[in-house]
């Protein structure tokens, strides 16, 4: 099958950096990476012309439990780089902690990623290092610093997150 063939190629391409492969369903392949390897992995995909960057999704992974045991556990953010090639969707996934929320910019390899990276920056508070245009994309110019609407802790302007800043 075509999709299988594409995934075999992708797996071979990403072999040096992949920490884990997962196949959530027949059209998808999830590859878990660490942040430091992201650029090389994206470069590898781009050079082999494996599909195109379809979207970058951010997800706020709140600490698992608030019953006292998980309190000292820090929340994490997950960034997914979705590459589409025909029916196949490849997601490069990296997880980063709140306290060290930055990812490298892939704009040097894929220029059209700028819009998604700006979204990540203003909505999740993930610093994208070396992104060409760090301005606001969708939020107003006078939006307060340090308020990231798509983090789970943001529930409006009376929420603790907004109060803090």
């Amino acid at each position, binding site marked *: 099958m075509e999709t299988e063939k594409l995934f075999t190629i992708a797996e071979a391409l990403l072999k040096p950096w992949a920490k884990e492969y997962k196949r*959530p369903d027949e059209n998808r392949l999830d590859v878990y990476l660490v942040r430091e390897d992201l650029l090389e992995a994206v470069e590898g995909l781009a050079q082999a012309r494996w599909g195109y960057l379809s979207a970058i999704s*951010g997800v706020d992974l709140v600490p698992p439990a608030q019953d006292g045991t998980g309190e000292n556990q820090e929340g994490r953010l997950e960034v997914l780089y979705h590459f589409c090639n025909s029916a196949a969707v490849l997601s490069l996934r990296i997880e980063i902690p709140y306290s060290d929320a930055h990812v490298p910019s892939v704009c040097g390899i894929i*220029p059209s990623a700028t819009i998604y990276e700006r979204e990540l920056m203003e*909505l999740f508070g993930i610093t994208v290092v070396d992104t060409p245009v760090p301005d606001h994309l969708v939020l107003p110019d006078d939006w307060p610093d340090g308020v990231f609407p*798509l983090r789970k802790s943001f529930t*409006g302007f009376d929420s603790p997150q907004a109060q803090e800043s």
Partner: protein
Amino acid sequence: MQEKVEKFIVPIGPQHPALKEPGHFEFSVDGEEVTGATIRLGFVHRGIEKMTESRTWIQNLYMLERVCGICSHVHGIAYTLGVEKLAGVTVPPRAQAIRTIVLELERIQSHMLWLGVAAHEGGFDTLFMYSWRDRETVMDLFELISGNRVQHSVNLVGGVKYDITAEQKQKILDGVSYLEGRLQYYEKIITTDDTFLGRTRNVGKMTKEEATLLGAVGPTARASGVERDVRVESPYASYPDHPVNIVLDEGGDLTSRFIVRIRELFESIRVIREILTNLPESELTVRVPRRIPAGEVISRVEAPRGELFYYIKSAGGENPYRIKIRTPSLCNWGTVSSVAIGHKLADMPMLLVGIDPCFSCNDRLVTVRQETGSQTMYWEDLRKYGVEYYQ
């Protein structure tokens, strides 16, 4: 002597007669020639992605249908397909067929709307009036199927609301036959009328290489010869049984974008006819649990403007954990700012509408309202404010 080159900047938007929705562009011009372009979005930012996290799976369907007014059904489809996959249910074939028919009718509606708007930007108001007059045929068909012209809301999580009766089937067939004739006529106009070709030929030319690199999707990419169509690549709904032929054009300029969009509609009409004549008999809905099992799903569909991408993550509750929407217009923006340079200012509106931009689609995250510069309101407050205002 140091020569100071002063840039003359023509702003287009946020409010401008050429833009039916707010967006802001700044074109630096030298005489009539454009030397640079920048884009600022966010003027109709509504916070839909955040709002989905506090609403139930059922309520979200109706909100996501309102991401865009022109292609509401396709957002509903992307969402319901994703949720149904997460819940592990299969929608009955008749419901799939009806969904697909409405999808293709919506494509016709959207492209004809675009044809009118594009003609208007080119100062060809007569074509604008006629294409919108004929678009009424599709709107009447929507009215026939669902009762509503714009927000058809045909979808349910787990099926469709409305059946297509034998009588309606005949009316739809008649309607698309009429449209087919008209569309052939419009195709003739856009490919032969010299005044119109003068405005579109060799304008906004984008090679296959550029289109691939800039990540263009949908008709904008196909007009440059890039084979990108989710209906073909990864068929959903009824497309596996009724495959669509990809429509390509190699020109890469505005004329090609016109041609691709119109020819695509002949394909849509063919698919509608094919599905209507083989309409399967089955139930219209299937039960979907209120709590969707934990998991995540990626749902891709082909909207009139290109690939629509949904990433849905469920934590097992009554509300989604995260929904990421990537609309086709967002992908196509990049092409405008790089293609604009070197063109005449008069071509800018045409170039902008060439990608069929949808501002509401781009701006969907958080709504904020400024109250005399000091108080910022969140959606809930804004809503309370609105309710109080009218009491």
